[in-house]
């Protein structure tokens, strides 16, 4: 037995270099000059490096830094194409991960590579890929470098168009989990199929119709080798012995009934006619007890819709969202931050803000239940009118809201959200009484003349700190903030400009008032210098009225850009697309290098 094993190992030892040689030389042989002519290589790279210093004001010492005084996150993408064939790979390194990124990212490797070809109406990808069905309610693979978020799927992806106006996609694979290779115990397998039907292309009679209609539908399923897990439930009862009353608590252990397969489906439509556009998608997910919903057997439901109308100089937009128990991951015990193994994507219906104070209290989607609304009007007062001036004035008003959904008990003796039960009942499109988020913003943009332009913005935000930061569903920690921004740009010459940005944030809650100022001097197209300071002047604790100062320098040459920044990074939530990452306080030097080729 032992000998046999050895022999097997020996075989492997020889096999590896042989295969290696074959694979290294195969491309070289294959690519005779004529084939190489069509070859193209492109790619891009980004390296962020930080050197941290101790900062007694922020309580940062070598030991709080774990003696990791240097952090570096970097990636390089390389893309090879030749006619209908392409190959892609991404090298990533986190040595060590910068502050605020999960330590499980530490290391270097190739977490993403694929080969892809197109023949006729079929496109095949093998390896890692990002795919999205509809708006992503039941499936979306995506990556956001600044968040340290990547849920790419490793497997096969096919796209096929059997007829004009019809696009069918199918995929099977497993998702990325830091650097951990797939094993049956580590996570599940994701399968999905999706169809898009462009009616105007499918039916001759509709070819020239002004109204464009697209219908779509998808089905996704995950298989997982489920663990055996149990939970305990207490039941209290009283016994009277003689004159004494004794209270007892009986603990009973139950096993969860965890499904191996969890399916989901979605249907969607898009109708557009000139400046009018309507999109709606409805999705359902099967019984899926998981760590996010505290192991309840309830099904998931989601609706997302947007409607907009616009013509030159005027745009109006309205979107609604209702989600109930829609966390969908390829491992049921996975939860927490950073969010990993998400199969689906639940877009937040709140606006993404551009100014740092407006983004200080950001919203993150609550997958267990949320009602969201957003409305926006963009209007440009025409050029050469009294109010518009020579260049016009743009006014943008946006309001967004996120609330809890209404949850009712499934029976009088079972409290809401009890683990190992159906959890609760909720009527479709119900509106609960816990505000998660409110945001009103009004923005004016005006160009006075060729050299001077200005933007002024006012924001009024309500932020439920308990819900968004601590997952405590009550309304006891609401932050009410007023924010004002003035952003002025003055052009000295065609190439030289100065930008001055002033911001103020006023609140009685959390850390109190803030003021900030940025001065940025730019020499197009290459140089940029900036100094900025964010000052927490209104903090109730006088000792931590901190200045978060920074000086920055940037140099761009075509697609190469290097920027150097020294100063303090303010702690807070950094959010992209409703997914957030906590960034702690830090002080130090940051160098960023980006390049495309």
């Amino acid at each position: 037995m032992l000998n046999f094993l050895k022999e097997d190992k020996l075989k492997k030892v020889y096999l590896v270099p042989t295969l290696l040689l074959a694979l290294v030389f195969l491309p070289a042989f294959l690519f005779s000059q004529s084939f190489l002519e069509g070859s193209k290589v492109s790619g891009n790279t980004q390296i962020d490096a930080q050197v941290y210093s101790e900062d007694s004001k922020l309580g940062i010492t070598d030991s709080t830094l774990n003696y990791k005084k240097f952090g570096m996150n970097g990636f390089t993408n390389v893309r090879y194409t030749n006619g209908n064939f392409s190959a892609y790979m991404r090298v990533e390194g986190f040595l060590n991960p910068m502050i605020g990124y999960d330590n499980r990212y530490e290391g270097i490797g190739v977490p993403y590579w694929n080969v892809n070809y197109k023949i006729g109406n079929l496109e095949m990808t093998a390896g890692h890929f990002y795919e999205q069905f509809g708006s992503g309610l039941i499936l979306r693979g995506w990556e956001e470098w600044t968040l340290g978020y990547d849920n790419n799927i490793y497997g096969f992806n096919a796209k096929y168009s059997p007829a004009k106006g019809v696009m069918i996609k199918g995929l099977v694979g497993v998702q990325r989990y830091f650097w951990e290779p797939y094993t049956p115990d580590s996570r599940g397998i994701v399968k999905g199929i999706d169809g898009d039907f462009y009616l105007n292309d499918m039916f001759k009679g509709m070819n020239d119709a002004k109204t464009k209609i697209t219908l779509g539908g998808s089905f996704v399923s995950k298989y997982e080798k489920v663990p055996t897990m149990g939970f305990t439930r207490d039941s209290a009862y009283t016994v009277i012995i003689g004159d004494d009353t004794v209270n007892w608590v009986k603990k009973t252990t139950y096993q969860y009934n965890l499904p191996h397969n969890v399916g989901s489906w979605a249907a969607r439509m898009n109708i557009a006619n000139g400046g009018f556009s309507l999109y709606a998608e409805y999705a359902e997910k099967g019984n899926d007890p998981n760590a996010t919903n505290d192991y309840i057997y309830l099904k998931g439901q989601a609706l997302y819709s947007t409607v907009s109308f616009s013509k030159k100089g005027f745009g109006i937009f309205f979107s609604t969202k209702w989600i109930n128990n829609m966390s969908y991951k390829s491992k049921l015990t996975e939860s927490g931050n950073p969010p990993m193994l998400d199969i689906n994507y639940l877009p937040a219906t709140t606006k993404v803000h551009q100014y740092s104070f407006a983004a200080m209290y950001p919203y993150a989607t609550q997958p267990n239940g949320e009602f969201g609304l957003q409305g926006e009007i963009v209007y440009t007062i025409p050029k050469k009118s009294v109010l518009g001036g020579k260049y016009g004035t743009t006014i943008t008003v946006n309001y967004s809201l996120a609330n809890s959904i209404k949850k009712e008990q499934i029976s009088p003796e079972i409290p809401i959200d009890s683990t190992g039960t159906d959890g609760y009942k909720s009527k479709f499109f119900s509106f609960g009484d816990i505000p998660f988020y409110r945001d009103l913003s009004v923005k004016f943009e005006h160009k006075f003349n060729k050299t001077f332009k200005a933007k002024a913005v006012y924001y009024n935000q309500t932020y439920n700190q308990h819900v968004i930061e601590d997952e405590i569903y009550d309304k006891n920690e609401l932050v009410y903030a007023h924010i004002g921004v003035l952003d002025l740009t003055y052009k000295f010459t065609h190439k030289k400009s100065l930008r001055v940005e002033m911001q103020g944030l006023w609140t009685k809650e959390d850390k109190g008032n803030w003021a900030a100022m940025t001065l940025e001097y730019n020499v197009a197209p290459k140089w940029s210098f900036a100094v900025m300071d964010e000052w927490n002047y209104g903090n109730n604790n006088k000792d931590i009225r901190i200045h978060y100062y920074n000086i920055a320098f940037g140099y761009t040459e075509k697609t190469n850009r290097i920027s150097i920044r020294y100063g303090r990074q303010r702690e807070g939530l950094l959010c992209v697309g409703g997914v957030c990452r906590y960034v702690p306080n830090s002080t130090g030097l940051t160098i960023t290098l980006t390049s495309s080729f």
Partner: protein
Amino acid sequence: MKNLLLVSLLALFVTTGYSQEKKEVGQKLPSVEVKTLDGTAFNTADISNNGKPVIICFWATWCKPCIKEHDAINDVYEDWVEETGVKLYSVSIDNSRSSSRVQPFVNGKGWEFEFLLDVNGDFKRAMGVNVPPHTFILNGNNEIVWQHVGYLDGDEDEYIEIVKKIIKGEDIN
């Protein structure tokens, strides 16, 4: 097995990289499916301007410098088109959270470019875009001959200079 594949991929890149030194040809656009504002599918290989240069700007509704860039170009775009016949494709990388805001936003702003929606970043990845704004200029043969990242006030003057050089057949480097 994974390592072997990677090694062979690398070999592919290296051999190609070497062969490319011999020929100085701009890259053609990758063929990726994106959408127009009315939800119709559009293949990026079909971006063209009848033999005249094309500018492609990657942007997002949440990107401050991108909006500045678009505003600045919009102010002079009519003159650009009149003088050079250039066409600008504006590719929004807004995801499904904000992609439906794009149409009312660009119309409200009164921008008059060709708009495309790259909702899951497929075109962005294929073009090697790290962060917006990222601007590409294509010559009349639809080959990428110039690109630039970031936006500083006044950068648009350089874009049109490059376009004019391309039309005159001058060296743009």
